[in-house]
Each structure stands twice: as structure tokens, then as C-alpha cells.
């Protein structure tokens, strides 16, 4: 415990006071393997920002501050930790403590709750500089609405798929305080903006859409697509999670087998997750086991190889903010069939096939249509999709957009 605090305090001395500051609040520390996130942070640093990451748990590292983990501690440890946090904050950050309490009182929170939150967000209150405080998703910002004003920062939040779609359903009205405090919202798709509006986000809050980017150099075909007569090799790259709608795909395939027995389809599902038993059971019960395979999680190189060998990609989610796998498949010049869940239609654009969600028979029709797609039409569509990606989803564009997102802050405070 002490080591953790000391490490965190040691880092704070490296803060460069000249640069505008961005504090990113995340649930878990980004691992080095999460290239998407680390690239984003690096992009902001390259654009002249000082970026610190505040996390609930996970690995430490340069510029990463971890919470004390009070909620997960034993009662005795949590009392000691909280006492430490309050004392240090009162001694070193009295102004922030005062503003935090005032803001929390204004939100109608009681003294015990305020004291608990102060200790829970010790890492932010102690180490963040004024500038921007940006939350990785909305649920993270719930309960932390007073932090930015206490620090003297602007507050930003990202709309992610599952978070904004599910959290308000489970906790109705929970985002009201957040909307009253947030200065700017980042969304990954227009549909998520609409979802947030349905959950009370006022029109007065500026929203900026910045989509994730795809590594277009890596996801590039090395050999032209070769169709196999009468075969349809379908692939889905996704976690095995109920929101991915894979059970509906299996139902569609059963339908396809009955309606078009001449189409020799095979279905590869790449990814792991809690639903393996459910999906393997579904495939077995519908008599599809010999044509459906679960490959588990694969390395990017293997995924690329799989796309090389496939005829089409399906992502039939019931909830999906934004799907990188679909873009990667499009980058590999595969026809993509997606559901109409949130961000998916925007992901694939005009060149993908969009099927209403939870409608396996319609999905079966779409698959049958792809199976008989003339070679020239297929080529034209998939190349157009690749071109669109090159124009809209490149990494450089994304980096610039994020730098722009936080630009308003320069010299303001």
C-alpha cells in the first residue's frame, strides 16, 4: 500500500507545468498490448499535451496513477487508507477539498458519501493538474461528477457502446448529475449520440464524433479473393458475448441450410468468452456442429490469414457501439453483413449489408444473396469499402481529431 502511494507521489514530481494537461480516467490501466489506447495517449503527447492516466486498478507505469482500492480492502485497511487520504488531501489540497465538498453538497450528497468519494478519488484529487479531466466511459464518471470542478478542470466523457446503452437501463436517472457537469462529449458513432440524448443528454453539450482507427497497412490483402464453387466461408471475429448476437447467426444458418441446401456454408467464430458453452450447445442442438467451428482467441496475424481465406464477415450484434473487427474485414476486402445495432450501419457505410437485428430469417436471405454475388459486383463493392476506410478511419486522422478535441483548453485556465 505504502509502496503504491510512494510510487504515485514520486511520479507527480515529473509533471511538466508548461504543457496543457489532460487526465484520462479509466477503469483499468492500459496494457502495452492495447495499441489503440497507447497510440491515442502517445498521439496527444506528440501534440504537446501532458497526459496522465488515472485508473481504478491494473498495472502501474509512467504517468499512471492508481486508486487506493479502498472498496476492495478489508474494513481495517480501508479505514486506515481513508484516514490517510483525507489527511493528505486536507494538508496538501485544501482548496480542492473545499470545492469538492461544495460541489457534492450542491448535488445533494450526504457527508458520509462525500467522505467516501473523496478517499476513492484520492489519486485524481491529489495528482491531477487543472486542464481536462476526461472519463473513458459514462459509468466511470457517475459519482465522480465533482472532480473536474474541484480540480479546476473541464470535464469530458466518451460514449462507448455497452456503457451508454446498458448503464442507464440498469440505473434509470443515474446520468442526470453527469449531464449537469460535463463540458464536452466524445462519441464513436452518431447513433450513440442519439442514445445518450434519449438518456437525457442536453443538446447544449457539444459532441464530437471521433471513430476508432484501423491499421490499414496491416490489414491488407496479399492475395486476391478466390471463390470456391458453391461454398460460402463465413467468419465472425468477436468475443463470445450475448451482445454479439452469434446465436441469431446460428439460427440463420439453420434457416439457410433448409432454404438453400445447395450452399455449402461453413462458419468460423474467432474469439473466446463466457458464452462458449451456450453457442456450442446451440450449434449441436441445431445439428450444425460439423460446419461451425470455434477457434478461440487468435493473434492478429492469424485473423488476417482467416480473412484471406473467407468469403464474407458477419457481425450480427444486438448492441454494438463500434466494431473494429468489421472495419478490419472491410480492409481485407470482405463483404460484411451487420445488424442495425447502434454504430454498425455507420461502420460499414453504403458498401456493407445491414440487416435488422434479431431477425435470423432476414440474415439467412442476406447470406444467400452474398453467396451468389457476381464476382465483378463483389470486387467493386469491397474495393469501394476499402477506399472509404482509407479516407475516414486512418490512424493519423484519429490522432489529429483527438488533439483538436482537447484544443479548446489551451491557455483557457
Amino acid at each position, binding site marked *: 500500500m505504502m509502496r503504491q502511494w510512494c510510487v504515485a507521489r514520486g511520479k507527480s514530481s515529473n509533471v511538466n507545468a508548461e504543457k496543457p494537461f489532460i487526465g484520462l480516467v479509466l477503469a483499468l490501466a492500459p496494457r502495452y498490448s492495447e495499441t489503440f489506447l497507447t497510440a491515442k495517449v502517445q498521439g496527444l503527447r506528440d501534440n504537446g499535451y501532458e497526459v496522465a492516466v488515472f485508473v481504478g486498478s491494473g498495472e502501474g507505469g509512467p504517468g499512471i496513477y492508481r486508486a487506493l482500492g479502498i472498496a476492495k480492502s478489508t474494513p481495517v485497511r480501508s479505514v486506515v487508507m481513508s484516514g490517510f487520504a483525507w489527511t493528505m488531501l486536507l494538508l496538501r489540497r485544501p482548496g480542492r477539498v473545499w470545492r469538492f465538498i461544495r460541489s457534492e453538497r450542491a448535488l445533494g450528497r450526504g457527508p458520509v458519501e462525500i467522505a467516501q468519494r473523496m478517499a476513492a478519488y484520492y489519486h485524481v484529487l491529489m495528482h491531477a493538474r487543472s486542464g481536462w479531466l476526461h472519463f473513458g466511459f459514462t459509468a466511470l464518471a457517475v459519482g465522480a461528477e465533482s472532480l473536474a470542478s474541484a480540480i479546476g478542470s473541464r470535464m469530458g466523457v466518451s460514449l462507448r457502446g455497452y456503457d451508454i446503452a*446498458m448503464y442507464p437501463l*440498469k440505473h434509470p436517472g443515474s446520468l442526470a448529475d453527469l449531464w449537469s457537469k460535463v463540458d464536452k462529449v466524445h462519441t464513436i458513432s452518431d447513433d450513440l449520440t442519439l442514445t445518450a440524448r434519449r438518456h437525457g443528454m442536453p443538446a447544449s453539450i457539444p459532441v464530437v464524433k471521433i471513430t476508432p482507427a484501423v491499421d490499414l497497412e496491416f490489414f491488407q490483402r496479399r492475395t486476391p479473393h478466390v471463390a470456391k464453387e458453391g461454398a460460402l466461408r463465413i467468419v465472425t471475429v468477436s468475443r463470445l458475448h*450475448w451482445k454479439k448476437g452469434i446465436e441469431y447467426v446460428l439460427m440463420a444458418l439453420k434457416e439457410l441450410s433448409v432454404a438453400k441446401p445447395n450452399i455449402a456454408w461453413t462458419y468460423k467464430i474467432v474469439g473466446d468468452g463466457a458464452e462458449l458453452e451456450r453457442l456450442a*450447445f446451440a450449434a449441436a*442442438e441445431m445439428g450444425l456442429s460439423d460446419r461451425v467451428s470455434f477457434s478461440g482467441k487468435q493473434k492478429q496475424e492469424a485473423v488476417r490469414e482467416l480473412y484471406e481465406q473467407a468469403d464474407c464477415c458477419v457481425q450480427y450484434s444486438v448492441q454494438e457501439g463500434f466494431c473494429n473487427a468489421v472495419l478490419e474485414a472491410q480492409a481485407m476486402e470482405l463483404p460484411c453483413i451487420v445488424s442495425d445495432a447502434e454504430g454498425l450501419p455507420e461502420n460499414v457505410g453504403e458498401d456493407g449489408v445491414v440487416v435488422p437485428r*434479431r431477425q435470423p430469417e432476414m440474415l439467412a436471405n442476406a447470406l444467400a444473396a452474398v453467396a451468389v454475388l457476381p464476382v465483378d459486383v463483389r470486387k467493386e463493392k469491397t474495393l469501394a469499402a476499402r477506399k472509404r476506410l482509407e479516407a475516414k478511419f486512418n490512424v493519423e486522422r484519429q490522432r489529429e481529431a483527438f488533439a483538436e478535441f482537447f484544443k479548446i483548453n489551451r491557455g483557457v485556465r
Partner: protein
Amino acid sequence: MTVDTQSRADRVASVAFLVGEIPCAPFIAALINGVAARRTVIVVGSERSGKRLDVFGANVSVERCPQSRLGRVRYAAGCLLRLVGRGSLELEPLWRFIMKNGRRRAFSRLLYALPILLHRPEIVHVQWAKALHRTMELRELYSFAIVLSLRGTHISSSPLGDAELLREYQQDFPGVHAFHAVCHAIEADAVALGALPDRIRVIYSGIDEAVLALPLMQLRTELRPLRILSVGRIHWRKGYHRALDAIGQLVRTYQVEYRIIAGSPDDELLLQLHDLGILESVHFEPAMSQTEVMEQMRTKADVLLVPSMGEGIANVAIEAMALGLPVVATHCGGMPELIDHGRTGLLCDPWDVHSMVDALKSFADMPLDRREEMRTNARDEIAATRRLDGLVSAMQVLYDEAMVRSQREKL
């Protein structure tokens, strides 16, 4: 030799039921109480907080392992003291058993072994197959006959997603002395996993006489709204996601009130409710006691929907049929063994929403006399084939067979 084993079986061997959690499911409790009329019975399980009260008779010894860490330590110490007091504690084999999977698992293995060692039952009846492997290992401490109940998930879907479990089943099933299969469908699954076919008996669940004696409620003439009821925990196998898809279509043409007694919906179902716009028509209600559920079936529903993706035989469907509530169920597992489509209920395809919608529609459009006929057929069927006393006596025979096989093994 044969005479000797026969006479030992005649002594009526004692049985320990490994039920997992206490209180256990009501159908297991009913079986235990029935068996206890003729044998010494011990129930072993972990304490679970819950509203349902214990339903075991006075002649059943219950070994309930507490939930809290301190409670478990006290329980283990108490058991050890009792064993020492009797002078029957053999430290070396016990130590070997508890340390088999390393120090981290040692305490939980100790808790597993102690109640069995205390009572030294001659038969151990494992209710849930996932507990079989550890129970087989317990035989290193002393020899007993093993009976395994083949029930739903543990047999038909769990091994599909868990290679280690599949390996354990394949290793352990040939050593089980007798299997109780809840239906023929699950019998086939077990054989595929390595169970010896001649050791399996299909013994259908039974219903208490008292339930069959309850007077039938009057059927409603007009099914507006159509009051659909489902009962059972929230789990993908229970197929509520399919039922909600069906309700989403049904509400376009029918007035529907769908109640699910299961507790709060999980994320998947919650999103689906909003997505399909059926919040008004679907109500999730907290779990209830069996008596309360039966009351709901008798008075607050027109039809029981069993939308499961996989089942042995849903006990709730047996109860509904006994109470005179018509049943629409999916054609999965042993359900077709219970329901004769069109005569004692309606069946539909679990992997086709339209099939479920059609079944519900055809029920909603069914004239009163057809519904009356169907539920009477269903109740007669249950009265003829699913009586609790039949289940208990078949189980007693199964225990005797298991004892004989176990004795033969020793010789």
C-alpha cells in the same frame, strides 16, 4: 457370494445426498424425504441464504456447511472433534486427499470430506454431476457405492464448453455404480459421455398426491389478455431471450401479459425488453416458494410457457399439468417424453421464434372445450405416470442395485 451381497443390500444401506446447496430444489427435497422413510439419510450441502425454508423431515440428518469463513473453520473443527471423539479419524489418507490439488484447495477439500467421513454412508448419491469427480476421489478414504443423478445443464451442455469437465466425466462415468436419468434424452447424452447403459435407469420425477388432489380452477372463456407465466432461474438455458422475441411478435396482434417468476432480468433480457418495446407486457417477479408458485399457476395464469433451450424434464411443467394449467413448451431434452403435442400440451421449436409464436397463437385461439380437454388429459397423464411414491420406490431399487455392484467390486 451372491447370497451374501444380496443380504447386505437387504440391510438397507444408508444414503448421503450431495445436494450442492441447502435449501435444495423442492423436487430433490421431496425425493429425500421419500427415501428417508426406509433408509438412514444424510443430506450434505453448503448453506445458502434464501427465503425458502428447509423442507427435510425429522428423520433426515442435515450437514450444512456455513457460508462465512469463520463459520466454516468452526464447522471443520467441530467435525474433526467428533471424528477424534469416535476414534475414527485416519489422518494419513485424509491428508493425502485434501492435499491432492495443492494447498490452496486443501480447506475446501477438507470441508468436502468431513461430513462424509462422519457418517460413512454406504451409498453417496451425487445430485449434480460436476461434483462427481471429487466424490470419486473420496473413495480413496473408504469404499462406498456411487449413484449419480443425470440432470439438465451439467450433462447436456456444460461439457461442451469445458474440456476439463468433459475429460473428468469420461474418466469417472464408467466407475459410477448406478445412474438416475431424469429422461431418456439425457440417458443418451450420458451414454455418449461413457456411462454404462445397463447401469442407467430412467426414473421420472414425481408429484405429491396432495397437488393432484387440489380442485381445478375454472378456465377463462376470453383470453384477453392472454396471461402467460414462466417460472425458473435466469439462465440462457431457460430460453427467456427466445420467449421475449416471441412476445415481441405476439403483442402485435394479441393482448398479452407475460409474467416471469425468476428475479430481476439480466443485462441481456433488460436490453431486449427495451429493444423490443415490450416493457409494458412483460413483468419479471421475484423468486417464490413452491407453494406460492403453485398458487400463481392456479389463479393468475392461462398458460405456462417453458421456453427452455435445453432441459431434462422441467419440473415446473409437471406441476402445472398436475394443477390443470395448460403448458406450451419447447421441444428439447425430455420435454417430448412429458408432453404429447396437441393432446396434453403444445410443443414448439426452441430455435425458431415463429414456431413459439405459432404455438402461443394456436393456444390463444383454442376454444374453451379444447383447452379443457387438453388440461384434463395432462392431469390424467401426470396422475398415471408421475407419482412421487413411484419415484421413491424406483429410486430404492436403484440404490439396491448400486449396492450390489459396489459389493461385487470389492469381492
